[in-house]
């Protein structure tokens, strides 16, 4: 198992290196440069700035220097905010994005498994139809529509009750996180519900469920010990991509709810061609995703013994 994890980590590091290199190349292929704004008024200032950021050196040398710094965990200094290190930006804003993302993922997974199991149990009866209607809605309606809609609902709710139970925007304690996390997790929840439903139905037709019934086990026991664990496997497989969807979707939700997450920097940096921030946020998010996917794989192997034992060999 340890060897398996180490192997996965090694592959992960190669992946991150690849992400970094690809981003570096793509970034330098974009026309323009980070100093092409009002800051570099004269040639002298421009030359000084270029020296300060190391842009006077050839691109290959810049690449080597950057990679070296990255290995030491230094993402450099941002162009757009003077003397503020990228590490600093990430340290301050990533926890917000991560909290939102993890919460959304939690909602999506728990909701998906629960609703999916329910629709399978009540197949072709009204709870199934009602839930599946909302699932279609959740998949087809983009998150910014949900975000605006939920703000409008909160506003009305607060007006009717005459108090502010849920804030409309901003960031703080759990009350601030609840609605944005729900909105962010919505499409993934809908997607997972569909997966869970079909996987539950598939499992309930298998021979081993028939065996379980022939053993005289109660319906509840069969559901918990035999169906759920086997049905949840395909759902876990897509958790990796689901994390990616939620992370990238977070940028939109963060901006609608005015949440001080990393997403804003991510988008702004590209617009301003802020080399260090682009590199820093991309590599960091990449590394985060790779780590999450590895965690999902490890989780998977705990639920499915076939994977676990293969990994041990």
């Amino acid at each position, binding site marked *: 198992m340890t060897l398996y994890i180490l192997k996965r980590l090694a592959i992960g590091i190669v992946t991150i290196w690849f992400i970094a290199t690809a981003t570096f190349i793509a970034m330098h292929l974009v026309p323009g440069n980070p100093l092409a704004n009002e800051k570099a008024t004269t040639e002298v200032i421009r030359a000084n700035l270029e020296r300060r950021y190391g842009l006077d050196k050839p691109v290959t040398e810049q690449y080597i220097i950057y990679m070296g710094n990255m290995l030491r965990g230094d993402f450099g200094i941002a162009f757009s905010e003077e003397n503020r290190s990228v590490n600093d930006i990430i340290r301050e804003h990533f926890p917000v994005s991560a909290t939102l993302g993890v919460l959304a993922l939690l909602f999506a997974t728990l909701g998906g498994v629960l609703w999916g199991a329910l629709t399978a149990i009540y197949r072709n009866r009204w709870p199934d139809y009602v839930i599946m209607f909302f699932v279609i809605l959740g998949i087809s309606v983009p998150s910014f529509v949900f975000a605006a809609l939920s703000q409008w609902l909160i506003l009305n709710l607060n007006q009717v009750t005459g108090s502010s139970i849920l804030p409309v925007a901003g960031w703080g304690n759990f009350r601030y996180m609840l609605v944005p996390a729900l909105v962010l997790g919505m499409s993934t929840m809908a997607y997972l519900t569909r997966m869970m439903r079909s996987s539950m139905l598939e499992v309930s037709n*298998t*021979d*081993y469920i*028939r*065996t*379980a*019934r*022939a*053993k*005289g*086990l*109660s*319906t509840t*026991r069969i559901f918990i*010990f*035999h169906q759920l*664990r*086997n049905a949840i*496997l395909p759902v876990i497989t897509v958790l990796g991509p689901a994390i990616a969807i939620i992370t990238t979707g977070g940028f939109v939700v963060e901006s609608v709810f005015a949440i001080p997450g990393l997403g804003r920097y991510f988008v702004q940096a590209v617009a301003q061609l802020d080399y260090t921030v682009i590199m820093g946020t991309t590599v960091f998010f990449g590394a985060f995703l790779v780590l999450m996917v590895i965690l999902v794989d490890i989780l998977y192997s705990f*639920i*499915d*013994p*076939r994977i676990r*034992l293969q990994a041990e060999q």
Partner: protein
Amino acid sequence: MTSVNQYALEVNNLAVEFTTYGGTVKAVRDVSFKLRKGTTLAIVGESGCGKSVTVQSLMGLIPMPPGKITSGSALLDGEEILGLKTERLNQYRGKRLGMIFQDAMSALNPTMTIGNQIAETLIVHRAMDKKTAWVEVLELLALTQISEPARRARQYPFEFSGGMLQRVMIAMSLACKPDVLIADEPTTALDVTIQAQILNLLRNLQEKQGLSIILITHDLGVVARMAHDVAVMYAGQIVETGSVDDIFYRSSHPYTVGLKEAMPSNKTVEQELRVIAGSPPDLFAPPEGCGFYARCMYAMKVCEKNSPPIFGNHHGARCWLHHANAPAHILQQSLKDPTN
């Protein structure tokens, strides 16, 4: 509870239908049989003749809908088990009625250890705690001749071979010492050597525990080896019943004769295998008369429109040839009269 019953299981006039888009399939039509205590009853017949549906409906395992038990009764040592609610039925199945299936690999939960799957039955039906159950599990695995039970019990189905898994299935179905064991083609997926081992195991267990077994198979070799009584099924009906000797040496139904002749023997090397010409009737619209009419070489006028009753008692055949008015020469030629 009276134990004066001679029969471990008595099935009367069972009929099962399936409603599909194409119409209603009458999969089992008026099936009756009796399983004597401590003996093996083999139900034989070709694929799709209703063998599995018969026993699965006894266990409450056919999906309803589309399945429906339209009539019949099944008495387990005198107690009715047909048409019970799931909670009531669960007091019988797994406990007094054990069942093993054809493909043990897919019939066991892939994400649960063998030991836990066996222990589960004990915990549910015999109110054991996990520890006591585990001790019992190891005994059961040893009983079914699985070596190193302690290590094996902690393994998962994919770490076992097919024959080993069938032993596990047997151990699991015997966990609560059932009165009746239903074996639905237990050796079909196994090679001949393993098949012999499994059959021997079943026979030994029967002798040791006084088990009554219903054995479903399409292999007459297995029947000859295992069965005391035989029921031959064709097109959803039992066409001939009797002791194993009755069926093999005094066959009274043209279909049984055809089956026997289709058996490969080790003598006629040069000869092609014999087959029963034609194919079984469409059970969406079962024939009015005898189900075997279209394929029967002795078919008479009466057979087309009139479904024959079972002639004979202990050895019975569903065939008009045994009617008093039927031409006697056919009987003398190749069929035996079950009433004699």
